């Protein structure tokens, strides 16, 4: 379990905090979705959690042990997939994985096995400089899984991937959860977060605006609507009416020339908009 407690970070030391009072926990065998626009402070928190940034204020605990006092061996237990595909471009995909695998002092997954899982087996011996953006993203993701991490940090893992490949990556993430890893998922993709996360946190302006399970957030901030496509003056139009507004719904259905009608649930995107007043854009 990872616990983040009242973390603050000020890059310039001038009292302007990039993140303030951030607290949450990530259980082992669960996925924590961390959502927020660019500049919200997601990377700051991930960097503090992975030891790339020193903690200034607050605490990050792994199984009740502070990140401040973590020993080298701890880094055998974490895996990080960065948003930027930070690979050795002059090495092949296989050489990259072999090199990083050698850095761990615990048994690692066979690089070829991982390349197979992310669909790069055929390109294993190609230099990364010849990979497409999506291929690099998959290789970066595969690298994070080399040491079968107990704590897995994923930053935009499906960014730039085609739908079929993205599904494969989602399955792999769920596998990590199933084997007991605590997965910290940073993403702009509400769909991905909704599909995978057990808990989501909305980060906005350096503070957590909301944090709960997707279902609970939808219950609290969302509403179920009926989406109606109707014809008016020869043109098709569309409207949404809250499902619990029976009176309005009934009146509309009696008068309108309805073409299509279906119920819809509030999306995390809409909830984010309601909670923060801002759209979640990259």
């Amino acid at each position: 379990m990872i616990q983040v407690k009242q973390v603050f970070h000020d890059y310039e030391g001038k009292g302007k905090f990039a993140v303030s009072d951030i607290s949450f926990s990530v259980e082992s065998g669960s996925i924590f979705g961390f959502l927020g626009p660019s500049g919200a402070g997601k990377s700051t928190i991930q960097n503090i959690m992975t030891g790339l940034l020193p903690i200034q204020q607050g605490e990050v605990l792994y199984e009740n042990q502070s990140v401040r006092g973590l020993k080298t061996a701890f880094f055998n237990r974490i895996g990080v997939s960065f948003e930027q595909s930070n690979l050795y471009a002059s090495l092949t995909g296989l050489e990259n994985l072999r090199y990083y695998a050698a850095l761990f002092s615990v048994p690692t997954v066979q690089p070829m096995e991982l390349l197979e899982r992310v669909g790069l087996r055929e390109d294993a011996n190609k230099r990364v400089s010849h990979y497409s953006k999506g291929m690099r993203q998959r290789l970066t993701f595969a690298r994070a899984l080399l040491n079968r991490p107990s704590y897995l940090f994923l930053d935009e893992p499906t960014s730039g991937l085609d739908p079929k490949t993205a599904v494969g990556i989602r399955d792999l993430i769920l596998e990590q959860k199933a084997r007991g890893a605590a997965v910290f998922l940073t993403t702009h993709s509400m769909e991905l977060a909704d599909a995978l996360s057990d808990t989501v946190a909305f980060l906005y302006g350096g503070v957590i605006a909301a944090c709960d399970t997707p279902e609970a957030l939808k219950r609290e901030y969302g509403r179920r609507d009926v989406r109606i496509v109707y014809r008016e003056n020869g043109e098709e139009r569309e409207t949404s009416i809250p499902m619990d507004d029976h009176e309005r719904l009934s009146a509309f259905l009696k008068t309108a020339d309805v073409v299509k009608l279906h119920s819809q649930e509030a999306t995390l995107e809409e909830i984010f908009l309601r909670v923060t007043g801002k759209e979640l854009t990259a």
Partner: protein
Amino acid sequence: MKAFFSSIDREFRLIFRNGISIFMVAAPAILAFVFILVFGAVSGTVLRLAVDQSITPADQQKLERVADVERFDDASAMSARIRQTDAVAGVSKDGAGYRVLLEGNEDEAFVGGVRLIVGLALGAGDELMPYQVETVEARGGMAYTVSMIAMLLMTLFVGGATIGMSIVDERESGAIRAVAVSPTRLGGYVATKLAPALILGLVGIVAAALIIGKASLLPNYLLLGVASVFVSGMMTFAVGGFATNQVAAVGVLKLLIPVSMILPVSAIFVPEQWQFFYYALPMYWQYRALEAILSGAPALWFTLLTLLVSLPWFAAAVRMFSKKAVFRKRR
């Protein structure tokens, strides 16, 4: 150890897949070739003579026992040959005697040597006393000494600079961040950069020594190369710490090259009583060691000083690097 050797393997793969790195690694050998083109190789030094028609074939044969002889059809062609940059003396017959022609800028040792050898060769019968040719070129000349030391300093500089560029590449691509969240300690990372820098430095200085014909001094050069490990490390982490991209790295190298080569060699022009200004500079001790090696003087003390003086500089460079890059000390 698995991580260490894997890192070294990766380092050399990256170097030999990058055109700039290959050029940097090859630079000492290229410079050594340029050096021998300008000054001539020292090993197997032979006297080179030019003769004209006035020298009989019998006399030419005598001269060929002691020198490489080029024959020219007339005196003006021979003069033109003598005026070329390498050390060639001309011999012609003048009545009953012989005349030795020189360009005019040779030092006394060369002039005396040529006179003696030519005299011995032409005066001898069928048997010529065996003799050993020592260096006949302007060995003690300032240009020769400065160029030789600067070139050898360059070979020691290149390893550190090349690996420094590799760190910059890691920082620019972000690959270093993935290393920083692995079990790699700062010390381990530093060791995996020092080792290839040292290997490149040693290979460079051995190649340069062989090419310029200083093979007999190889043990001294190798010892200095090993003692220069922290100088290379200092360069590596100065480049890797100050530069975050390849363009900035070139800028940093432009600053470091004068500090590494021109500054220490400038000590040649500084009076002895002011030399203490250089004492804190490890490259100065490299220069002193090279100067001693080249002149056949004991160089061990200067070699040791190179190691000792460079250590605090190296530690400072690593400290600066660890602050600027993402590596933090771990237990």
